[in-house]
């Protein structure tokens, strides 16, 4: 709204978006524990689970632990959902990346249910995921996530989750 009509310098835009994403991810300790990182192209996010020995659930095959895959996909879904909520506010200047780092300034959606479909065993190498918000209402959201490793078209897991959205600041007492 208050943005000047002249486009901002590219570095300013990129810096603001990257700082926001970094802040969103850094505030969740479990994301660091699992080791998930995110790449951004415009508003499109890709979650990456770099392979580590601690993610193994079947040492004989070996294969990733189903619980590690589940956590990875849930992290990807939650960050995508929060990102799509925050994006318009950050772009318009209503929220600064600094505010995102404050735990109290940004409420996270809550997972209601999460259903994971294991399509093939997770190989001992990096995994990727992209989430799509299929429905985002004032109170509830439905998010689908796809996970793959070597081939984008050969998913190793997919998941759908429902989330309760945090109350808007204006709804607070």
């Amino acid at each position, binding site marked *: 709204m208050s943005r000047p009509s002249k486009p901002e310098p590219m570095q300013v835009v990129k810096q603001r978006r990257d700082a926001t994403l970094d802040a969103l991810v850094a505030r969740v*300790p479990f994301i660091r524990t699992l080791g998930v990182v995110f790449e951004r192209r415009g508003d499109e996010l890709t979650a990456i689970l770099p392979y580590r020995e601690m*993610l193994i*659930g079947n040492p004989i095959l070996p294969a990733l*632990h189903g619980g*590690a895959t589940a*956590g990875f996909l849930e992290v990807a879904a939650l960050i995508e959902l929060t990102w799509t909520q925050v994006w318009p506010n950050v772009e318009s200047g209503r929220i600064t990346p600094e505010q995102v780092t404050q735990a109290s300034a940004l409420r*996270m959606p809550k997972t209601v249910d*999460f*259903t994971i*479909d294991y399509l093939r065993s997770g190989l001992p190498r990096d995994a990727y995921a992209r989430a799509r918000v299929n429905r985002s209402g004032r109170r509830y959201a439905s998010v689908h996530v796809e996970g793959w490793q070597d081939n984008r078209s050969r998913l190793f897991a997919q998941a759908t989750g429902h989330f309760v959205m945090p109350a808007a600041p204006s709804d607070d007492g």
Partner: protein
Amino acid sequence: MTDNRIATVRDFIIELPYARALRLELRGIGAGWAELAMPYHPDLVGDPATGVVHGGAVSALMDTTCGGAVMAHPDAGLGTATLDLRIDYMRGATPGQAVRARATCVRVTRSIAFVQATAFDDDADAPIATATGAFTVTGGGPAPTLA
């Protein structure tokens, strides 16, 4: 044979690298059921505003407990994999408290095990989460010895 098998499963599931990373503890195991606990740790927090453990950590506890129940079932082999798992999160686990999950095989066929699990913290009256899963079953029989 059954006691031998239970002992094998008991050692196996909590020694898995990811189970160790989450500090999972075995609380009980028997024919077709298992009970595991995940102690509270700041590494597992999902919402810094509340200190509540991330759903992804609870999912791993549920998946491991369900897998353990399948491996401990007399009609299933030790090799099992999750086909699908649905988790319903009913409330956030109280920060500072361990999460306990108990899984039971509802039905085991020659190819599939249907498993249900419930997770609690110290309040045994209000579940944190429930899970329903389908797991693969590979040939039953005596438990192989692990290297």
